[in-house]
């Protein structure tokens, strides 16, 4: 099982780090619809939080592809940790309940 988990994580990291710089830069379905129907300006300046790594580009990294790859690395590991951590917490609660 351990081996497969590692392989799974490595596949995800490979996508997040090596494939991410090749992602299309075109607006996605919602953004394009908002542009076409002229309501994209509604969101301008409305951001509630200012994130550490806006738009999947690591700040301070000049090379655009590297900035994206670095963001992909951080994000993939962050979601891995959060989802794994959520599972761990559940498991602990379950053990407590069964005592």
């Amino acid at each position, binding site marked *: *099982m351990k081996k*497969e*988990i590692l392989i*799974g*994580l490595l596949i*995800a*990291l490979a*996508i*997040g780090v090596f*494939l*991410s710089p*090749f*992602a*299309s*830069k*075109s*607006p*996605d*379905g*919602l953004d*394009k*619809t908002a542009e*076409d*129907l002229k*309501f994209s300006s*509604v*969101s301008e300046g*409305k*951001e*509630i*939080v*200012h*994130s*550490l*790594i*806006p*738009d*999947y580009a690591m700040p301070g990294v000049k090379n655009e592809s590297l900035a*994206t790859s670095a*963001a*992909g690395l*951080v*994000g*993939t*590991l*962050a*979601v*891995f*940790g*959060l*989802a*794994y951590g*959520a*599972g*761990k917490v*559940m*498991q602990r*609660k*379950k053990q407590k*309940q069964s005592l």
Partner: protein
Amino acid sequence: MHIPDGFLDTKVWAGMSVVTAGTICYATKKVNQKLGERQIPLMGVMGAFIFAAQMINFPVAGGTSGHFLGGALAAILLGPWSAVLVMSANFIVQCLLFQDGGLTALGANIFNMGIIGCLAGYGIYKGISNILGGNKGLLIGGAVAAWCSVMLAATATSIELGISGTVPLKIVLPAMLGVHLLIGLGEAAITVMAISYVLKVRSDIINDVAKV
């Protein structure tokens, strides 16, 4: 399809936040009762894959791109309720760390692109794979569930925008469905590829009856 801050009015984003929070609470309860130890690292890997795959926007017609959502796939591999938790983890990280999707719209985004795919997608997948049977049934069920999850996400997003008064529903709905018709095909392709890969290396995950 991440909704930024400003697109939804207060009643809509607050309402969607409540619905999503309630669903996450229920999912937590379900997972608490039944989660097997083997499932925990799988949740982590699934989350990592969803995040990475969502970064890869693929071009569709007319200067538009689409990206994977993954709710249906996560539910097929993990079970619907653990999938809800994994998808939530993904959208929380995207919102807080990467400014993808507004903080006020977080509940709506988790609902549209996560919960719908996990629950409705899983139901569609189960229905079709039970009727057709075999690995072919699993793949066709996964493909249809994936495509439907994108169309339902686009529908929910349109309805929320319409109720918010951002854009009339009768204008935004056909536009959103038109473009997501194609994006849904990408979702189906990635979902089928992932299911066939897992069937090859770890078919027990897909047929595991202890999924939550």
